[in-house]
């Protein structure tokens, strides 16, 4: 039985406190790329009761995603943004989700992210990561960006950190492991990086700027 909105919200307030939960309720967060990082970030934020999530990915769910991404086997073939919207609706039906199946490019960044308070970079290609982070920072002075670099392979999860590069740019990861080196991607370690990103988002929403 799904709890009604009031019961659901009261349970979040019980865990997070009324003042902090009010900030989570009002937050608008974009998650760009809905793979191993983004799908896990989005689920963590939905569970925390972030009010509005903006999910962006051009791709569809593949069998090779299931080792680390928040999709069910039966969702292979569906657009990721739609599949994740459905999965989040099952976890927190009161989270307002805007799901967009679109390829992000330098030319559409300003239009795509105008309404979001914080942007999470969760792509897998290094060039796409740099394009998104640079583009968001050019288009929106002051908008925090929480990005990821280095989570491939099976090195210690303890090497994954959150680094504040500058006033509004945070980069999570080990900074060195590249999937192109044939290290593979393991759900648990990608999840550790996603957890760093989601935690930094929650800290920013709560008013804390240090990692």
């Amino acid at each position, binding site marked *: 039985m799904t709890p009604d909105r009031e019961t659901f919200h009261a349970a979040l307030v019980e865990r997070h406190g009324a003042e902090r939960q009010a900030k989570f309720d009002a937050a608008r967060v974009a998650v760009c790329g809905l793979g191993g990082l983004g799908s896990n970030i989005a689920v963590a934020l939905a569970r925390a009761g972030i009010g509005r999530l903006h999910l962006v990915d051009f791709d569809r769910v593949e069998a090779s995603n299931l080792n680390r991404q928040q999709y069910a086997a039966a969702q292979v073939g569906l657009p990721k943004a739609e599949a994740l919207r459905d999965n989040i609706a099952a976890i927190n039906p009161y989270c307002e989700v805007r799901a967009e199946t679109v390829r992000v490019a330098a030319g559409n960044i300003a239009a795509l992210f105008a309404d979001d308070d914080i942007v999470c970079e969760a792509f897998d290609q290094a060039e796409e990561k740099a394009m998104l982070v640079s583009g968001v920072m050019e288009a929106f002075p002051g908008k925090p960006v929480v990005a990821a*670099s280095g989570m491939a392979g099976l090195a210690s999860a303890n090497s994954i950190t959150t680094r504040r590069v*500058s006033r509004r740019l945070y980069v999570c990861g080990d900074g060195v492991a590249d999937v192109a080196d044939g290290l593979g991607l393991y759900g648990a370690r*990608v999840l550790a990086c996603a957890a760093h990103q989601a935690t930094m988002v929650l800290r920013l929403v709560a008013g804390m700027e240090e990692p």
Partner: protein
Amino acid sequence: MLKINGEETDAAGRTVAEHIASAGFNPSRVVVELNGQIVPKAAYADTVLKDGDNVEIVCFMGGG
């Protein structure tokens, strides 16, 4: 002297593009901030580093 990723470097007079190339970074994988401001990708070749600058270069690794 100027600071690049926290280290004192004698790179004054070079452009951002020249420094990226000499450091061995792939320019399409980096994000560059100069004195707290993002350097647009289109401006790498025209942005000249000078003494006292504070530069942060993030070179992204793939995977996600």
